[in-house]
């Protein structure tokens, strides 16, 4: 069927075997690709309770029907597996030439099983698969590894690789690509590391099956130019994502001092204006029309690529208000293959735990040198503290005790993105109900809360907005697979995506059709959680306790004296469950599963946990 290559590549590292595996048209139409493919494959193939860092886990690279085809921002891939940080389904997306190359090699997804006997680089060259030694770069960072691969194969190949953090099974290790892109903050780098899989290199030369290749080519290139024109007019790329930092500071939504504070008088020193002034280069993904990566010189003269999340969490959150200094922390995270967001939250949690007497240590806020040292210890799992912090803030808090779990800034084991929800109920809900832990990629509602609703509201309008955005951000863009930025930041119409879908597949689908698929995938992810945690309840969907703590309220500014309230948050959560058709534990009901076409998967999950 046009739109898909129609086959997966399944590789077993233990046996050093591979096979092409066709999938049916029905499978393609039901799950589309990307996150949809990954969720279904992992649900069907992983036995509940397996060790995410053991050989039974699978590492998946999944693409969608428009991935890799020239059109606005389609150079992205989804990486997925059982998450070492949450124990549930985990994924992430990143910009990479793998999107185009793997599809041209003839595959819509790569499924990696088993564990290699020695450090391995997987080389996929159209129909050929080679298991090559990566011993030469085992123990090296992602920059050296990437250069080593480029020296062998040139820069046009698709590359995924890991640094020392992935090798040493840091639970928030990421997968890296193209010297600047990272994805899979749910620990997908550690899943690769657990398989001794240092890198994946892909070359493909075949045409991607499309219903109307000439039409897609014309529309794709026209739209690439048009989105670029819109971006130039809007000016979004001038400050890129870090433009939002100054706004978060103004409306009391910035993470400062492990989220204890919501704004800071020195925040301007690391805002979008300063980042733009310090810019030495700009980076983007393949097929990008509005490049978001702004590169600066860090305090050791290295090139460090920054965006808002890593500035927010490695800067103000650690009370570091110096761009070259936080740029250095960002560079180290990127080189080690540590997720910058979780890395920032883990360091801030450690400083806060020391402040509150939960643990003794020689570290604190505004300590760039100490932060650099700790990132190295984490990546190498060096010493007791390196080992503890490599486990993430939730597990570290269990170790430290003394109530420190209340200010471990995480949900389900995944650290919170750079939005302080001390008094932003809808965004707190978005973090709470994200199916992979506290990631902002599923839903982001802060502007809506302030402009279309009121900040104090815990009403159903906010729950509905979270659902609407999940269908788009966590759904459509994650299974098509494409970057959401043209739509969210420059207003590129969502109606373009059914248009692209028709050009590649020949099939008519409306956005409403796609929302059903989004809901189906979200239901599947909940079933995955139910199998892993049969005693699950709605408390899994609560944000960190410190956001409810009146003693943590701001003493001045726009939200002085205010924090989230438990009973009202629980009511908001119930609105969300009601809209989605979930029961009081946050699990889809049998009727909902039936409506979404996943009753069979429900019956499979019911062997492990109850359905209502």
């Amino acid at each position, binding site marked *: 069927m046009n739109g898909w290559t129609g086959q997966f590549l399944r590789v077993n590292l233990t046996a050093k075997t591979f096979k092409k595996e066709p999938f049916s048209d029905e499978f393609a139409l039901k799950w589309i690709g990307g996150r949809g493919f990954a969720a279904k494959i992992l649900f069907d193939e992983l036995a509940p309770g397996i060790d995410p860092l053991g050989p039974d886990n699978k590492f998946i690279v999944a693409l969608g029907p428009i991935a890799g085809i020239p059109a606005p921002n389609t150079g992205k891939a989804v990486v997925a597996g059982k998450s070492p940080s949450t124990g549930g389904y985990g994924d992430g997306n990143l910009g990479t030439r793998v999107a185009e190359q793997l599809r041209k090699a003839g595959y819509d997804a790569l499924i990696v099983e088993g564990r290699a006997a020695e450090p391995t680089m997987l080389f996929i060259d159209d129909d050929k698969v080679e298991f090559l030694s990566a011993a030469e770069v085992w123990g090296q960072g992602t920059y050296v590894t990437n250069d080593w691969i480029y020296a062998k194969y040139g820069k046009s190949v698709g590359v995924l690789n890991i640094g020392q953090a992935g090798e040493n099974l840091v639970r928030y290790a990421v997968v890296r690509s193209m010297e600047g892109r990272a994805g899979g903050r749910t620990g997908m780098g550690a899943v690769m590391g657990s398989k001794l899989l240092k890198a994946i290199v892909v070359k493909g030369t075949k045409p991607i099956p499309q219903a109307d290749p000439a039409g897609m080519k014309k529309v794709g290139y026209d739209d690439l130019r048009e989105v670029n024109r819109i971006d130039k007019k*809007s*000016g*979004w790329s*001038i*400050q890129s*994502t870090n*433009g*939002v930092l*100054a*706004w978060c500071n*103004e*409306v*009391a939504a910035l993470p400062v001092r492990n989220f204890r504070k919501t704004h800071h008088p020195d925040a301007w020193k690391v805002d*979008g*204006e300063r980042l*733009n002034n310090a810019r030495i280069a700009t980076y983007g993904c393949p097929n990008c029309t509005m490049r*978001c990566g702004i590169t600066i010189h860090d305090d050791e003269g290295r090139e460090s690529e920054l*965006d*808002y*999340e890593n500035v927010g969490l490695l800067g103000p959150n650690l009370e570091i208000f110096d761009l070259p200094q936080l740029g250095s922390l960002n560079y180290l995270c990127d080189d080690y293959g540590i997720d910058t967001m979780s890395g920032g939250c883990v360091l801030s949690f450690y400083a806060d735990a020391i402040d509150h007497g939960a643990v003794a240590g020689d570290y604190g806020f505004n300590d760039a040198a100490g932060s650099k040292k700790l990132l190295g210890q984490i990546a190498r799992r060096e010493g007791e503290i390196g080992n503890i912090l490599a486990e993430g803030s939730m597990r570290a808090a269990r170790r430290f005790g003394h109530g420190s779990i209340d200010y471990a800034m995480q949900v389900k084991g995944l650290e919170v993105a750079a*939005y302080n929800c001390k008094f932003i109920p809808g965004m707190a809900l978005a973090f709470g109900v994200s199916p992979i832990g506290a990631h*902002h990629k599923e839903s*982001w509602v*802060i*502007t809506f809360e*302030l*402009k279309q609703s009121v*900040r104090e509201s815990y009403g159903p309008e906010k729950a509905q907005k979270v659902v609407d955005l999940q269908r788009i951000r966590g759904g459509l863009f994650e299974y098509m697979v494409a970057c959401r*930025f043209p739509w*969210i*930041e420059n*207003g590129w119409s969502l109606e373009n995506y059914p248009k692209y879908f028709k050009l590649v597949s020949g099939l008519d689908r409306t956005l409403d059709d796609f929302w059903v698929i989004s809901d189906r995938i979200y239901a599947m992810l909940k079933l995955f959680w139910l199998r892993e945690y049969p005693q699950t309840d709605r408390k899994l969907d609560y944000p960190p306790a410190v956001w409810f703590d009146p003693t943590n309220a701001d003493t001045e*500014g*726009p*939200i002085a004296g205010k924090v989230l309230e438990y009973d009202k948050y629980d009511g908001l959560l119930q609105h969300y469950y009601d809209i989605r058709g979930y029961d009081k534990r946050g699990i889809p009901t049998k009727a909902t599963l039936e409506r979404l076409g996943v009753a069979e998967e429900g019956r499979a999950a019911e062997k492990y946990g109850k359905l209502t």
Partner: protein
Amino acid sequence: MTITVKLIGPFVQLFGFSEKQLDVPAGTTSDDLIGLVSIDRSRPKIVTRNGRAVVPDEALADGDRVVISPIYSGG
């Protein structure tokens, strides 16, 4: 009365300043302020007054800090 106006993100480059103080007559609304600082009215935006969102006809007060930002969507 004196109002501090702060622009966010690309508005800084597009409209020519980052932050400035303006002397305006009593009764000036947030919408009046948009006109005074020559912000393109057709651009989608969110305006906050002392950290809280305002409606266009809301009257400002002496010492207010007004922030004018494009609609960000959280990356």
